[in-house]
């Protein structure tokens, strides 16, 4: 049995973070100074840079500031931006969390707001420290997965090993979320055959078709130069490897960023915007997807990499699973798990799958990941537009 921080809404967290959130780029420096000067690695910087309103950004900011790993929130506003700070504060307080707001234009400027922010963080920490710690079942975990810097080894080692771990966690009743429909182009038919209902299967296929159309307008697939240097030639080849992260369980539903999985089991997170392409690339970099997984409640994210990534995340820890044995040797200080040994015949997929399971349980129990220990707390949120989920997307409801 794990231990979790019990939030007033009944959800449980594996961390007890104070989030300092800037609500426009103009407030970013002040917010960052508050985080840095707090000198506490459990005070995390998040934010949205845009001055224009965006429903998606509001939904994601609401979801991450009320995430079970968060114990209190400080909002930093310049004052004239469009972001609805009163509505966000009301949502955070409705979740039972302490929240304070500082408006720079009303707080005396940069230095004064930083000073007031440090005092606010101390008050929020005092409240968060009172959070009850209770028993938490594995079934209460939400686990995300993403791949970044994929190469020709990813689909043979790290991704199917994560799939093994997903099968185990799903069988325990945990919610497992895979994503990036642009990296499932070419897999839509086999994926649809795993849906719990035919209607959901049709929705899964439609998600991937939407992604293909969107990326075609962008002019590039979800395929970076490093993918090709690592031996991957086509989008569908990369997709087949990425798809194996989902394991073999039935697919229970589709989520969009900010939707919580209603039951345990396996979910696809649809990260590609709806409607005409408007705001550019769906996910400008890996952390944009990690933020969306966290917005869906992910307590921890399994990040598979072949070429080698070093990122972590604000709010929820990232476990790096390295697919390529050469990359592991080059970047071992950043990698939590060496799946490349499968390539060299030094371990089986099942053995590495078990290592991933053990790592998730240890991290959920408080052990820091490599990126967490080194202070990685990346966070990026950009503009998007989504329609609400269709009726066929979540056929299962919690009893």
């Amino acid at each position: 049995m794990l231990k979790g921080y019990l939030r007033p809404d009944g959800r449980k967290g594996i961390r007890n973070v104070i989030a300092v959130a800037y609500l426009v780029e103009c407030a970013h420096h002040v917010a960052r100074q508050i985080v840095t000067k707090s000198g506490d690695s459990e005070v995390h910087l998040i934010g949205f840079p845009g001055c224009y309103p965006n429903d998606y950004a509001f939904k994601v900011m609401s979801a991450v500031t009320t995430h079970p790993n968060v114990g209190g929130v400080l909002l930093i506003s310049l004052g004239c931006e469009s972001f609805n700070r009163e509505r966000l504060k009301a949502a955070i307080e409705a979740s039972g969390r302490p929240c304070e707001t500082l408006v720079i234009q009303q707080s005396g400027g940069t230095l004064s707001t930083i000073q007031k922010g440090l005092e606010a963080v101390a008050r929020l920490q005092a409240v968060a420290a009172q959070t009850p710690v209770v028993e938490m079942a594995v079934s209460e975990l939400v686990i995300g997965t993403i791949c970044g810097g994929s190469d020709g080894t990813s689909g043979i080692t790290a991704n199917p090993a994560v799939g093994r771990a997903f099968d185990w966690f799903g069988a325990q009743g945990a919610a497992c979320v895979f994503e990036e429909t642009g990296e499932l182009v070419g897999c839509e038919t086999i994926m649809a055959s795993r849906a719990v209902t035919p209607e959901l299967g049709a929705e899964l296929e439609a998600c991937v078709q939407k992604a293909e159309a969107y990326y075609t307008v962008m002019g590039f697939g979800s395929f970076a130069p490093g993918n090709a240097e690592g031996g991957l030639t086509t989008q569908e080849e990369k997709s087949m490897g990425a798809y194996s992260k989902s394991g073999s369980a039935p697919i229970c539903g589709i989520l969009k960023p900010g939707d919580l999985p209603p039951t345990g089991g396996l979910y696809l997170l649809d990260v590609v915007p709806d409607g005409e392409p408007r705001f550019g690339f769906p996910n400008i970099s890996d952390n944009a997807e990690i933020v969306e997984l966290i917005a869906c409640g992910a307590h921890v994210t399994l990040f598979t990499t072949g070429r080698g990534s070093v990122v972590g995340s604000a709010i929820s820890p990232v476990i790096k699973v390295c697919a390529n044995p050469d990359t592991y040797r080059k970047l071992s200080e950043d990698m939590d798990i060496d799946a490349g040994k499968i390539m060299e015949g030094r371990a089986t997929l099942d053995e590495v799958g078990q290592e991933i399971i053990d790592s998730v349980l240890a991290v959920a129990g408080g052990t820091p990941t490599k990126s967490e220990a080194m202070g990685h707390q990346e966070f990026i949120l950009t503009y998007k537009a989504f329609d609400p989920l269709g009726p066929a997307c979540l056929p299962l409801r919690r009893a």
Partner: protein
Amino acid sequence: MSLPSPLILLHPDDNVAVCRAAIAAGSTVTVGGETLPVTEAIEVGHKVAVRDLKAGDKIFKYGAPIGSMTKDTPKGGHVHMHNMKSDYISSHTREASGGTHA
């Protein structure tokens, strides 16, 4: 006992194998019962033709189609961007990131 092959055939229907340990140019490698003359150096993660391939042939890896050949390539040849393409959406390299798509 022979050393394990530096190539893996992921599925019996596949017409390419994946390199799991670097192969030197001019090596002869056996995988899936086929003996392949590998003329150029192959890095980990890259693909090698396990039979003679013609332009237009579908390429199978994991037992699934991952694109088509654009040029004829003999058994043992490197299969990558220079002789193969997506059947869905074009791939891009770093060269494409500078000029027209800046």
